Every structure is written in C-alpha cells, then in structure tokens.
C-alpha cells in the first residue's frame, strides 16, 4: 500500500499547477490510471482525503478514469485487451505480444472555478 505517498505527490503537483495558473479553487481532479499501473484506484480513493487534508484541495472531488491494458500481437499485428485475453492473442493464439498501454498514471485535468 504505497498509494498515500503517490497521491500526496499528485496533490503537490496539482497545487503547484493551480498556483502557477492563478487558480484559487478546484472543483474536481481527474486522474487516469492504467489497469497495469502500480496503483489501485480503490486505494487511491481511500487515501485521497488524508492527502488533501489541510491543502487548497480539501474540498476537491476526485474522479478516476481507468485506462485499459492493450497489447499488440507481434505475430498477427492485431491489438487486443490484455486483461481478458490473459496474455494470449485472441485472433491468432500468439503469445509474443508487446504491452502498448495500461501502465499510465496521469493527472489528466482539473475543473477549476
């Protein structure tokens, strides 16, 4: 459970961004988390209130978008969803694939008011 450290880092980043852009109030923070990312959305949500406590984001809502883990099959060059396929290409049965998305952890945007 290392989410708290990661979320505190995110909050620091967003506060810096807000100050640099003269934003005084943030209504919503939108994060994108890949299915293969090292952080778990449910844990991010549970430690978020502790991370924003005492900051300008105390009342900022958190919204999380989960990004799918996709892979490119090196045999047939089709793209497929990695989680459902369990690492095996559903088009040709090949196992030699390259992960092309799913490890992201992005601060996507803020809704400022």
């Amino acid at each position, binding site marked *: 459970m290392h989410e708290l450290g990661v979320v505190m*880092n995110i909050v620091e980043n967003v506060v810096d961004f807000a100050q640099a852009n003269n934003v005084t109030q943030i209504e919503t923070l939108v994060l994108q988390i890949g299915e293969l990312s090292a952080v778990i959305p449910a844990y991010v949500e549970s430690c978020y209130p502790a991370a924003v406590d005492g900051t300008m984001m105390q009342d900022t809502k958190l919204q999380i978008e989960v990004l799918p883990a996709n892979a490119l099959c090196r045999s047939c060059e089709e793209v497929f969803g990695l989680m459902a396929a369990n690492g095996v290409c559903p088009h040709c049965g090949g196992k030699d694939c390259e992960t092309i998305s799913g490890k992201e952890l992005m601060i996507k945007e803020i*809704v*400022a008011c």
Partner: protein
Amino acid sequence: MDTIRVMEIKKSVFDDNDQRAAMLRNELQEQGVFLLNLMSSPGSGKTTCLAKTVESLHGSMGIGVMEADIDSDVDARTIGEVGAKVIQLHTGGMCHLDASMTRQGVEGLGTKDLDLIVLENIGNLICPADFDTGASKNAMILSVPEGDDKPLKYPGMFSMADVLIISKMDTLGVFDFDLDAVKERVRALNPNISIFPLSAKTGEGMEAWTQWLQKEVAEWKKGATHA
C-alpha cells in the same frame, strides 16, 4: 456565478521521479560512480551476499553501501565490518525507494573515493520495480527457498532487472527448486538478463558474479570520460 474551466494538465505522475532519477544517474556517471540497485524479498540473503561481494572486491575498488530498512541498523553493522562505507536509510514505513530518497542517501554517504555504491532496497518484490532510483543497473536476488514460481508471480521485477542472482544454491538439495525452469521463465520475460546462481556460504558461483560487477563498473567509468 464564477465561470467553470476545465484545465488540461496531462502529466504523468511518474515523470517527476523519472527525471530526478535520470539527473542522479548522469551526475554519478560524471563522478565515475556506479550505483547498483539491489532488490529482493526479505530473507533472500541480500546482506550476506553483499557482505561476501564487498569482501571479495575490497581493495580493488572503493565501495559504499546504502542500507534501506524500515528500522534498525543490524545490516549496516554487518556490511561495515567487511570494509565498505555504510549509511543506514530509515524509510519510516515506505515500501520502496524513489530517486529523491536515493539522492539523499548518496549525499549522506558522500561519493569521494567511491567507485561502486550498492543501494540495498527494501525487501519487497513489487513496487521497487516501478520506481527508478537513478541506478546504473538493477539487480535482484531470488533465493532457492523462495521457490521457482516467483518469476510467474512477480513478473514486474523480473522484467526490469538487468541481472538476477539466484542465492542459497547450497540448499538446492533440500527444496524442490527447478533451476532450468526459473531460467526459462525469467528469459521469457526478459531475454537479455544475466543470471548468476551462487552460494555466499560456500562461495560457489561468487566469482562469476563479482567479475560481472567489476566489468560493469569499469565500463561505467569509461562512459565518465565522455561525459
């Protein structure tokens, strides 16, 4: 009513750490210091293996060790006794080290007269794999008693490591550990990894490992003259 604006940030959270890690790596190369990030689960024999490694390289190069633990200094004492300069990093509960913490450790240790710094990361096979520490190379230890299925269970770390040490080879007769299966499973994830089975207790396989390390340190120092 105030206007509501959606402001795009599009910033990867790991970017910061990656940039700090790259900066640290460059600075260390300019100083001719090789940083090895050593990862494993608790009880894999990391400290024993490291103590034997320091013993055998002592005299040929200046070695520093950063011991990262939640608490205590038992490992630092053991390593200090065999001739390395040691600093103990207490992480206060964090489960991995990132580039900022590594930099603090390097600055606390000091790089003067050192050619090799080993960062003994926190015993954990999961998140240390996701945070670049700024190391020149990443090494991991898997001990025989842990079992040959670990590459299947923790693919992240086995995929990112440059070198795998299989430790406690002297216990191979006691455990059902299939060395060939491990090599095959690891190479399926990471075809370029170097693998060294060894026993720090009997000394078996230690030479191949220390030779690899000496060669890597020498090559890293060659890069320093170009920097």
